[in-house]
């Protein structure tokens, strides 16, 4: 089976203040259809860079990036990136409804567009705020608007760059569960970048840890926890705790010592 989105022997080198900086080297990752894969790594490890390359926002310096069978050059059809900074990603002069319509309004009739927008807003539970401007909403709601904007295009792949990184713990947990439900409902493939170990283990089918500089994949771990997952019961399971333990170790934490980095 062809993976939905993949990279092979990927290298990324970016210009820095003192010569080129090697960010990624030899990264090979294949994400299957409807799979939820998290990319973990410490701050500055190149997680976001990897996602930007997969999303066609940054060209690879070496190796190949493919979406289905096509080499990626620019954002591929059906692949939408959701950014962490929702405030700068939404258009403040458009209402929630018109923000969600942004990606589809040129491609379909008005009634079809309205149906799609309603559908996407219902999935994130914001249908009753459709006429609001996004900056009148809370951070969590704004991020849901951005997710709805991506969902309205009915993407095959969602690339999410620390989407809940700027939100408080309670909002984060509720959005994680909402994302879980949406993914189950739509069968969307998700690549999810985060620095939150619990979040990655809780949400993923598989997670990879970026390690080193330039970074490659240091650990690739299947997460066979049963679905649907639950914030309390799943996180109390011994296998959840065991997986969490292994990920922390892969990130360089050692039991009995204060965290480094």
């Amino acid at each position: 089976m062809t993976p939905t989105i993949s990279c092979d022997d990927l290298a990324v080198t970016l210009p820095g203040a003192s010569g080129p900086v090697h960010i990624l080297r030899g990264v090979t990752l294949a994400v299957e259809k409807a799979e939820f894969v998290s990319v973990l790594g410490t701050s500055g490890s190149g997680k976001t860079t990897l996602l930007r390359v997969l999303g066609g926002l940054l060209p690879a310096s070496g190796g190949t990036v493919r979406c289905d069978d096509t080499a990626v050059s620019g954002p591929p059809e059906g692949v939408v990136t959701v950014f962490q900074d929702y405030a700068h990603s939404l258009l403040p002069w458009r209402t929630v409804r018109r923000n969600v319509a942004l990606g589809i309004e040129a491609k379909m009739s008005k009634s079809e567009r309205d149906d799609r927008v309603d559908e996407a807003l219902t999935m994130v539970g914001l249908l009753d705020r459709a006429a609001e401007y996004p900056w009148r909403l809370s951070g969590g709601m704004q991020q849901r608007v951005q997710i709805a904007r991506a969902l309205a295009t009915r993407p095959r792949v969602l690339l999410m760059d620390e989407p809940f990184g700027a939100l408080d713990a309670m909002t984060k947990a509720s959005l994680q569960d909402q994302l879980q439900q949406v993914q189950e409902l739509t069968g969307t493939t998700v690549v999810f970048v985060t620095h939150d170990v619990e979040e990655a283990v809780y949400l993923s089918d598989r997670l990879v840890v970026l390690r080193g500089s330039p970074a490659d994949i240091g650990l690739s771990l299947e997460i066979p926890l049963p679905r649907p997952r639950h914030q309390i019961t799943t996180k109390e399971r011994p296998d959840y705790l065991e997986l969490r333990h292994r990920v922390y170790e892969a990130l360089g934490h050692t039991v009995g010592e204060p965290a480094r980095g």
Partner: protein
Amino acid sequence: MVSLTKRVNLLGGAVFVLAIGLWELLVRTSVLDFTYLPAPTAVAEGLGELFANGELLGALGHTLFAALSGWALAGLAGVAAGSVLGLVRPVWMYSMASLEALRALPIVAFVPVAVLLFGFSVQTEIMVAFYAALWPILLNTINGMRTEPRMLESGAVLRLSKAAVLWKIRLPGATAMIVVGLRLGLSVSLVLTLVAEMVGNPAGLGFLLVEKGQALQPGQMFAAVFVIGVTGIVLNGLVMGAARLAFRGQMASSGEAA
């Protein structure tokens, strides 16, 4: 204009009325003793005379026509040129030095030049108003075109066409800045039209002011000053009102809510 009535500041208004009353008092009691300083009542009388003999409306119409024509042309040219300068890097590189030099030239210095080029005509006034308004509109449009990079990436991942990115992201993102440029441009084009009327084309409110001064009619002269002031305030209000109507979302999101 609901916002205007809400924003009327009672205390501020009282101070204004008091100041006018004080002025009247000081002139009448000759505490302020200038030969040609009229009391507010004399100014009101002058205003009535100018209105009755038709001089005022004629002059006002002339000045408004010149200032607004120049301003509107500057709006079109400034937004178009500003978009190109803001979006096309090489154009910006090549023209920046010339723009900086021209911008630094005080606009008033351009008035005698325009008189020489276009004669004592309304064209002179329009050219001066155009030139004056062009700079704030142009520079604000260029700045406004520096769109938040993340918004452009959002357009890219949603696979918007280049035209759609310009029309749906860049221009709306620049609207609030462009409106600021238009407001600044309108006030300077009015000022420079008046200057052109004083030293160039003998018509309009600027000339009326000079003429009444030279005819030793301080009441009418102050009335002309008063009309000029009110015109500036009304024009600015009209531009803001129109912008809020036409670009509701943009103005609201930049904190200029109605």
